[in-house]
């Protein structure tokens, strides 16, 4: 057993010990790498920082915030030069505080809060949710029952749900029939199952006018549910958010999925990499939130 361990470790150490810092070492920490959008941002920030001459460690804790807290403590003890955090810093306050005490700057990659960070680069979730909710209201001519697919434990998504709900509640002839909690991981399948259940419980054509999803994966799940139950000709309008590849493809088709919002994930990641580089090169970096603009993408835009 000990021999096995030593050999196994030796293989991995040899494989990883060739990397060395040139400009410095940056740890990119997230519990959400399984999310398609986080993956895009993390991959991009990793590439951008490597291009700038940094050694980058990407650490994912698979949804586990306690493990995120622990791994941040680990990289602090290793004296990394900077930490990029793709999670709300308010959920790991001890680690953020420890980084501050150790003099290691932290930068938010769509973190959603500036607490303890030097800079957070993100999209404006309130604005994006307003774009899709308003589009949905217009598409169903301000009338009918709307189903919301939400995930409030993740703060940026919670913000989206709050603003969309406010817009629907402020439209007199729209009734929010339910806010369905979509579990993560597995948002697409969970949303499909949930929407199938709602459709089955509401068999009359026209009983559901629209489905507002807080991000694209549940929207795709809703689309699958509508198609699998043969309800695609009822004019139900689905909107998502994030403009991931499969969502763009679905919107271009003739199905119910009609619009999403393209966050500039590459822009967010490159902005973070640039700010990290500025700070580590000794430039003064003002503490602030940087919002990268996002665009509504409809079927007409994509075609």
């Amino acid at each position, binding site marked *: 057993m000990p021999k096995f*361990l030593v050999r196994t470790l030796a293989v991995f150490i040899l494989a990883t010990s060739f990397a060395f810092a040139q400009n410095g070492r940056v740890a990119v920490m997230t519990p959400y790498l399984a999310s398609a959008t986080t993956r895009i941002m993390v991959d991009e920030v990793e590439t951008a920082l490597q291009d700038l001459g940094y050694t980058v460690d990407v650490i994912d804790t698979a949804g586990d915030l306690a493990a995120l807290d622990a791994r941040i403590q680990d990289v602090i003890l290793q004296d990394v030069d900077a930490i990029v955090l793709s999670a709300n810093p*308010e959920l790991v306050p*001890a680690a953020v505080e420890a980084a501050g005490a150790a003099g290691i700057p932290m930068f938010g990659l769509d973190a959603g809060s500036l607490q303890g960070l030097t800079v957070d680069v993100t999209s404006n979730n309130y604005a994006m949710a307003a774009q899709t909710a308003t589009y949905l209201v217009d598409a169903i001519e301000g009338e009918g029952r709307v189903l919301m697919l939400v995930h409030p434990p993740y703060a940026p998504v919670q913000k989206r749900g709050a603003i969309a709900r406010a817009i629907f509640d402020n439209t007199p002839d729209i009734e929010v029939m339910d806010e369905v909690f979509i579990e993560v991981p597995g948002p697409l399948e969970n949303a499909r199952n949930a929407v199938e259940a709602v459709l089955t419980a509401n068999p009359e054509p026209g009983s559901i006018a629209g489905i507002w999803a807080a991000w694209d994966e549940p929207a795709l799940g809703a689309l699958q549910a509508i198609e699998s139950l043969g309800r695609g000709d009822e004019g139900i309008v689905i909107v998502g958010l994030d403009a991931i590849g499969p969502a763009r493809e679905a919107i271009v088709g003739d199905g119910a999925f009609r619009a999403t919002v393209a966050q500039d994930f590459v822009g967010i990641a490159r902005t973070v990499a640039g700010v990290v580089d500025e700070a580590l090169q000794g430039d003064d970096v003002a503490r602030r939130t940087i919002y990268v603009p996002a665009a509504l993408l409809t079927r007409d835009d994509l075609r």
Partner: protein
Amino acid sequence: MIRRFGTLLGLIAIIATFSVLRPDTFMTVPNWLNITQQVSILAVVAFASTIVMVTGAFDLSVGTMASLAGMIAAAAMQADLGIPLALALALTAAAVGGAFNGFLVAYLRIVPFVATLGTLTMFGGFALLVSDGSTIYGRAIPAAFGGFGRGGIPLGTIDGRAVLLPNLTLVAAGVLIVTWLLLEHTGYGRRLYAIGGNRVAARLAGVRTRLALLGAFVASGVGAGIGGLMLASRLASANPTQGDGLMLNAIAAVFLGVTLSQEGEPRVLGTLVGVTILGVLANGLTQLQIDTYVQQVLTGVIVVGAVAVGSLRRREA
């Protein structure tokens, strides 16, 4: 000797390897205090799980119970009920949840795997219900509660940085001592081992097996609740799913500990070794900059390997 203590020797080999490869950062006082803090929450849940597993049963609901306890405490604090009442409510709920598990297993004779799989989902649902799915954080969590998870007893300074013996480490040590005394030095502990050996024989020998099992599940629930409170304090927040991942690691730690037992029984000191292996691996592999997913595979391989070696040893004995 090597066969009996193979897992312990494996731990020593792992520590030696990391010490050689990362001499400046691994074998340091701050890092070891960091590791004790990091494993403290898992340790408490694993110690409590040991009590149930001694009887030959499982409690799969410890993770969601930890989430639920954290959510109840956070929601109570958000409602300005104060920290003591919030903690009392959370631990009461944990005890009631544990008792419900015990009732299902001991009195309705539902297989523990099935019963606690059901309550796992139930407690997870309650955790979501408490805050309507939202995370409770920020000003809703009193500074004293969040400060406890971050604080500790000052030990001095190293390289100009304050070194603390973490409060969470002390809590875990306390739970370890209580569990060890309960299992190894009380009649109740011996009765639990008797149930694990042969439930029918234990009953015929006069052990009130149902009541003893019920008690074990209550202890498991309370342990999970304490773990959930420690997690909420450490993160100064409560998320309806934040403790869910504890269950598999807790069971893995107990199984790793079983490999140290001559009789193949769970022992709480063995569980401590199991928890330490998981904690040291996570910390050391991160320091070696090994890919997160490779870490996960490697940890799984080591757990399976250790348990397989222990199983072969017992078969040969």
